[in-house]
């Protein structure tokens, strides 16, 4: 197998948003902006598997 190792990658703001847009759209059928608003308005269950994972990536905070 060997011991080769790839390097992690820093994404700029646009790249990271684009990555999150794609994942949120694929899992929940909504945009990043809609997801953030839906979390703030508590219209999504923050403990369901995909919502929980995506919520920590967007940096959501339940205040």
């Amino acid at each position, binding site marked *: 197998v060997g011991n080769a190792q790839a390097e992690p990658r820093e994404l700029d703001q646009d790249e990271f948003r684009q*990555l999150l847009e794609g994942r949120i759209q694929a899992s929940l059928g909504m945009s990043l902006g809609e997801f953030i608003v839906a979390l703030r308005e508590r219209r999504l269950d*923050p403990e369901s598997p995909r919502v929980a994972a995506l919520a*920590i*990536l*967007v940096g959501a905070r339940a205040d």
Partner: protein
Amino acid sequence: VREPTKTPGQARTRYVRFLQLPLSCLSQAIWVVGDSPDGGDDASLTTSQDFVRLKREGRSALFLEASQRFELVPDHRFDGEWKSKTLAYIYAVRDSDEPGDGAEVISWHWHPLTTPQRPDPHVHVRADHAGLAGLSGLHIPSGRVAFEEVALFLIADLGCTPARDDWRDVLEDTLGRFRAYRTW
């Protein structure tokens, strides 16, 4: 050997570089890192593939989902140094790469900022058991789980094929580093 970091940027780079080591034991996937769009100064990292395919000899593949949220803070143990502080993690083992919730089999969760009513690390086992209705919805207390421990579990217990020959040494070393420098 300790690697001091004198700036937040150095601490961020060090953190992700060391976290790449256990991931490299499982796959050629990489961590991708970015600033959290709705998280102020927080950063997030996730794997380059939404669900990382994990080969298993003679058995169906499994898929890993892994995400973390972290911030950079002064390291009060070492004058003038910075460290990363984990704010949340989710590691999940899935039986397919379909994005729905139904593919999840086991997961390790800690997400106190999004669920203040559930501040502690826990495990989900998405299974049914005749003697314990609702098992899949339980939040099983776990203590803090390191990504290295998940990687070890995937290889040693679930039979995932290691992606490098020295995986045992790498996981032992990085887990030792995590345990030496963790603050909680």
